[in-house]
């Protein structure tokens, strides 16, 4: 079979891909922001709590990590509204899912990060007269963040790639845009010849930028 | 050593005009050195003078730029192809030649997943192609020669540094190498463990093992070796029997080197 490359139809619809990429990035940013809140919160709760509470946190983490994202996305979008009186659109529903998903991975990262802050450092804060809360905000938290920055960057980029799953809810992110053009123009090779570099450049570009940032904050 | 060709009289190791640079840094600038059968040669010289590099070239762990290293008359790393061009030997030839030289490392490098006995047996089984029973008996014999018969089943992590290094010596010596290369084998050890390792080396020397060792233990070098080589500026600067070398201190660099190490 002879296949003639024809990018014309792609350029005509390039807006779909540009807006799609932007939406993918937005979804990833919101998800990591909420995920950080969930992850840090649960990591602290885990650290302070009794066994039953810890078991609950672990259950959440293990459940989310061991179930496909696609199934979670379906469960939240199609399943939950049948048992709870709640309505949401694809974007909201997907964001909720991806944030919970991010949270589960981030709990582990934050727990490791908190454990990596040396005891002596918190004691030093105590010694100069900081209250426990001040010590936490000014000593423990910033030190922990420096330690986990690389993992945060990696998580962000992998969330960005995971946003492609939102296409199953017709959320018009990048993969949805690609599939739309594919089904409407049948220019499959050309679409992916454009979309693949978009993912690569955005993903590695962001990762590179975050690595530069990390270096600025690096623990010397 | 069993299997050696009858070349008595010829040196076991013969090095001529050996040159080696790392980028712009010329480390070896024309080393000439012969080691006769049964010789125990100690190499001394200041840090960074290329002693380790020299041993690694002999064992083909490092390649060199010019000159030649021969082991019983065979060029170790290079051969000439049909057109007469110098070619580095391939992986298989190098492996075969490496088996003829033993190397004991400063940091032991025992295989951590194998017991002391298995460490010694590995080369016997896979390189010397011995049957299990034979390899086991040779390895066991060597472990008792280094005083570790009772540690045959221990993993390296269960041994002291001195014991690990003795296994390291047994592993290299069991292969029946034409020359044993030892690179500062006691410098990573706690002082109280140095003696047991040197005693083993001493015994090997008395049994006629040909050895080329780099050492900072001047007293040991003086007492155990048949010859001392002082390396300086990439060349053999002073060479001779231990008595002469230490007594005459033939050159300024050697004198200042000896003055420095004797303060350690």
């Amino acid at each position: 079979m002879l296949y003639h490359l024809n990018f014309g139809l792609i350029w005509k619809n390039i807006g779909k891909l540009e807006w799609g990429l932007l939406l993918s990035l937005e979804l990833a940013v919101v998800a990591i922001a909420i995920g950080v809140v969930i992850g840090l919160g649960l990591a602290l709760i885990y650290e302070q709590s009794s066994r039953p509470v810890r078991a609950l946190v672990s259950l959440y983490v293990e459940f989310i990590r061991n179930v496909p994202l696609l199934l979670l996305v379906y469960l939240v979008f199609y399943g939950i509204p049948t048992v709870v009186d709640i309505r949401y659109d694809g974007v909201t529903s997907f964001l909720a899912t991806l944030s919970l998903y991010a949270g589960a991975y981030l709990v582990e990262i934050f727990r490791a990060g908190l454990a990596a802050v040396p005891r002596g450092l918190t004691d030093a804060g105590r010694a100069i007269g900081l209250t426990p809360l001040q010590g936490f905000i000014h000593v423990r938290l910033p030190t922990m963040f420096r330690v986990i920055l690389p993992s945060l960057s990696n998580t962000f980029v992998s969330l960005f790639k995971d946003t492609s799953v939102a296409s199953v809810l017709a959320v018009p992110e990048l993969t949805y845009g690609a599939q739309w053009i594919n089904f409407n123009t049948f220019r499959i090779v050309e679409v992916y010849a454009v979309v693949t570099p978009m993912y690569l450049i955005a993903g590695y570009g962001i990762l590179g930028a975050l690595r530069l940032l990390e270096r600025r904050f690096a623990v010397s | 050593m069993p299997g050696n060709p009858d070349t008595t009289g010829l040196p076991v190791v013969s090095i001529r005009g050996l040159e080696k640079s790392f980028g712009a840094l010329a480390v070896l600038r024309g080393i000439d050195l012969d080691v006769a059968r049964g010789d125990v040669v100690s190499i001394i010289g200041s840090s960074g003078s290329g002693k380790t590099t020299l041993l690694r070239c002999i064992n083909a762990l490092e390649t060199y730029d010019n000159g030649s290293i021969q082991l019983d008359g065979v060029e170790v790393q290079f051969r000439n192809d049909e057109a007469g061009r110098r070619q580095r030997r391939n992986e298989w030839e190098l492996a075969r030649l490496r088996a003829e030289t033993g190397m004991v490392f400063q940091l032991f490098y025992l295989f951590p997943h194998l017991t002391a006995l298995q460490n010694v047996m590995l080369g016997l089984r896979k390189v010397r192609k011995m049957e299990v029973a034979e390899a086991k008996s040779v390895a066991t014999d060597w472990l008792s020669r280094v005083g570790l018969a009772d540690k045959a089943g221990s993993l390296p992590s269960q041994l002291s540094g001195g014991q690990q290094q003795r296994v390291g010596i047994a592993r290299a010596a069991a292969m029946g190498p034409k020359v044993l290369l030892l690179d500062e084998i006691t410098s990573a050890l706690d002082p109280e463990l140095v003696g047991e390792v040197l005693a083993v080396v001493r015994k090997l020397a008395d049994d006629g093992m040909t050895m080329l060792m780099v050492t900072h233990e001047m007293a040991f070098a003086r007492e155990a070796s048949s010859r001392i080589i002082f390396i300086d500026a990439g060349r053999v600067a002073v060479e001779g029997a231990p008595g002469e070398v230490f007594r005459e201190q033939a050159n300024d660099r050697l004198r200042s080197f000896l003055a420095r190490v004797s303060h350690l």
Partner: protein
Amino acid sequence: MFWSVIESLPFVWRGLLVTLGAAALTVSMSLVAGLLLGTIVTYAPWPARIPVRLFSDLIRGIPILVLIFFVYYGLPVTGLNLNNFAAGVLAITLFSTAQVVEITRGSLQSLHHGQMEAAKAIGLNFPQRLTYVIFPQAVRRFLPPWINSVTDAVKGTALLSLVGIVDLMLAIQQVIGRTYAPMPLYVLGALIYFVINYSLSSLSRRLEARYAYIKE
């Protein structure tokens, strides 16, 4: 509704078998390919390393779903006609292989270079050094992340439902389409995936303990 869910169980079971089959194929093929390419990336001279490096970075840089769509819709264009199962498994295998390459490289590079030198020094040739010295030590570092990648592959197979392969995920979707009981079926599906993957991670912890005796 309860009965219709029960009646659908054999159908879900068949879907589960498809999921397990796809995962088993993916995992075994990617293990072989990944070990080979990972060893090349670690030890081969640069002309051999570069293409593998490019392959691995490219694959890891795009979403697995995009990879699946691309292979599934794109392969026919090249004149190669694979059925959807083969195309889907190929896509996930590519993804998984890239992961195994990195895991292999990481665990090989974590070994002290002295191990390679000591193995050279007793005259072992390259394949012997890998077989008797390097790989046995690298296993310990390799296993935990590799089992992680196996669970990733199992989860990844759920995306095959999007190219019409009736795996566990699509079986559940289809049963929901007939029974209108989404919640119980999604929860059932989640539990099945959970059990598979959680047993894999427990296995990983047990294997790790088994290799704990190797201390550098």
